[in-house]
């Protein structure tokens, strides 16, 4: 496989996952602001700013963050970059994958053309999330399980780990929301919602939403597909399968991702609060970006 193509696949996986994640977080934050509009505006604004920071987005209005074609960080632009990447690799992805992504792009363009209001924005956000689900489905149903598929999926799970870790980190950052306040009651469910984890969490913890349990679930739940543990374990598994194509080159990459997964799986944090979790997440972020650059150096820069 061409190095340039492998690179494009990896980043396409990342862009699509990032767009899905961002859309979900923005939608959850929009709801939070509506709920807290009367009660506690400060908390709502602070959560909003925290989320934007975790997503590395500038402080702009929701409509610009979603559909502004001139704003490089907008979701429209992310989808357009994913599509440009897909266009570069059309001969290695299945025709159905391209068609699905292209369709999603055009329906976003159509909502820009239709003019923006509350309902088009919300539609665009849920549209992006379901586009990403459809994309995953089409990919799994139609793409050959070669190294290309592995690079694409690795991009997805590296991005997912990073996204979830940042959201948990943002929630733990020192803030005006003290425990036991009304803000505290809403913000933890919002965190779950922004990661599509509400129902899954409730099944595991039917009693109530509680800080320690939420953190534990989002970071260490082995079976929840958007937890840090699940994502790092999947990335490690994918890198192990790369060895089949690259017996020599793949060794260090595999070890690198394997170490991260093990570190998460066997993490032993007793209190699960800012004092323990924040440094843990910082370390995780660091080793994840190291693994990502090692992967790129090994396979994409021939």
């Amino acid at each position, binding site marked *: 496989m*061409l190095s340039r193509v492998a690179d494009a696949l990896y980043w396409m996986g990342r862009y699509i996952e990032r767009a899905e994640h961002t859309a979900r977080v923005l939608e959850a934050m929009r709801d939070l602001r509506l709920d807290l509009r009367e009660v506690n505006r400060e908390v709502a604004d602070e959560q909003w700013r925290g989320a934007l920071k975790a997503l590395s987005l500038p402080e702009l209005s929701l409509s610009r963050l979603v559909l502004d074609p001139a704003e490089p960080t907008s979701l429209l632009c992310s989808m357009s970059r994913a599509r440009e990447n897909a266009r570069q690799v059309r001969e290695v992805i299945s025709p159905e994958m391209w068609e699905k992504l292209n369709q999603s792009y*055009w329906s976003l363009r159509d909502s820009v053309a239709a003019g923006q209001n509350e309902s088009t924005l919300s539609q665009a956000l849920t549209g992006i999330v379901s586009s990403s689900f459809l994309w995953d489905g089409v990919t799994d149903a139609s793409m050959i399980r070669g190294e290309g598929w592995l690079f694409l999926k690795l991009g997805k799970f590296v991005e997912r780990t990073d996204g979830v870790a940042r959201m948990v980190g943002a929630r733990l950052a020192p803030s005006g929301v003290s425990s036991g306040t009304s803000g505290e009651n809403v913000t933890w469910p919002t965190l779950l919602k922004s990661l599509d984890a509400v129902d899954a969490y409730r099944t595991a913890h039917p009693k109530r939403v509680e800080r320690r349990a939420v953190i534990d679930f989002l970071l260490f739940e082995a079976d929840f597909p958007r937890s840090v543990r699940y994502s790092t374990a999947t990335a490690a598994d994918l890198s192990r399968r790369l060895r089949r194509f690259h017996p020599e080159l793949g060794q260090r990459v595999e070890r690198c991702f394997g170490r991260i997964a093990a570190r998460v799986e066997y993490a032993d944090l007793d209190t699960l609060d800012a004092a323990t979790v924040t440094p843990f997440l910082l370390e995780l972020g660091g080793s994840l970006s190291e693994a990502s650059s090692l992967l790129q150096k090994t396979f994409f820069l*021939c």
Partner: protein
Amino acid sequence: MRLANYEVDSRTHDETFEPAGGVRPLYREILARLSDLSAQELEQRRKMVELLLRNQGVTFTVYSDDAGIEKVFPFDPIPRLISAEEWDHVERGLVQRVRALNLFLADVYGAQKILDDGLIPADLIYRAGSFRREMVGMTPPQGIFTHVVGTDLIRDENGVLHVLEDNVRSPSGVSYVLECREVMKRVFSVLFEPHGVRPIDDYTDWLRDMLMHVTPRAVGEPTVVLLSPGMYNSAYFEHSFLARCMGISLVEGSDLVVRDGAVCMRTTQGLRRVDVIYRRIDDDFLDPVAFRPDSVLGCPGLFAAYRSGAVALANAPGTGVADDKAIYPFVPDMIRYYLSEEPILPNVPTYIASRPDDRKYILEHLSELVVKQTDASGGYGMLIGPQATAEQREDFKRRIEQNPRSYIAQRTIQLGKHATLIDGSLEGRCVDLRPYVLYGEQIRVIPGGLTRVALRRGSLVVNSSQGGGYKDTWVLNSTEPGTKEERREPSTVS
């Protein structure tokens, strides 16, 4: 859909309707089926076609238009039919022409007999921008220069097909032909039923076979790649489409590197040797060492590797001299010279401004002629005499006098028309035809090709960059609709 008010333009040949207004026999069945559909139904299906094409990314890029850089090539759902008899004639004519052009290139970069014999003035060749002295003395693998040719054909007032242009560099458009047939089958399957339409989906297999045939290295499975300028090129869709259909890598210049005299591509497993390059970038940009030094699209050292026989290029560099507008008038003579045959497909009568007599005639008859700048393409650098203003004619007169070598002129042919769906009813619009010819072990012609249609009323320009659209082209197995023959094997001529 109503057919009653179709206007037949008496100055041109209409392929769908007879001069008196009746439907031509070839089209009776299909128009009957079309008229069963209501205007809304037809429009709905046309929209469905466009949506399918958009979602599949069958688009092209317009450079001058800021509003929408990416456009769906406008598609007309009324298919163009060609009878088996006429196609047989066209096919023989194209094969003859491509053989002669290939012999001409081998000669002009080899012994140059045709120049010695005075058939073509030598200075015409040497002064053509498309002549590559780097190719002199070079015999490409299997002796083939013109691997892929897309010849433009037009019909005159009497319905006779003429060759307007031989495109022997890297003609594009075939992906539209293949995609639009797929879409037509999905949306308008009802129209196919009464006809035996020759399939075209073998094209990419033929193309791959041809590319494998020219491998310079006897290896089990030669590595074939398609070299593209990248995704910002207007034909990028086609490049990726063809690469995908052939199961080969689509590479850009930066993916290639020359090591130890061989061309290699950079893969996740290190460098891998490349045997055949189907290049879709111009000669100028192939190799900054051999050609334009500022090119970043090509690969340094590529041409040297080609000359040493380490890699094959399709088409060969320097083929442009064969489709140069200044050389075009000589093609019928070439056919007689190399093949001792009479040309099967005629040229459009052409005047050469560098010949004093012709020049005098051109300057005196500017208002009746189409003048073409010999080094421009895509409908640019053209004067359509009858439609031009006095000012434009003055301008061209000056330009021709200053630089006669750069101009030829042709009689204005009233381009043949074809029924086309315009706002829910049929109107006649000008069409041309570009069949694709592959030169490998055999010479093969795709049954049909790209029919481009000038959608603007009265327009003669079919180029997509200037308001043109396209339609599906059906070569029928038999002339009489309804009498289906067995699927004919693609005809081949060795």
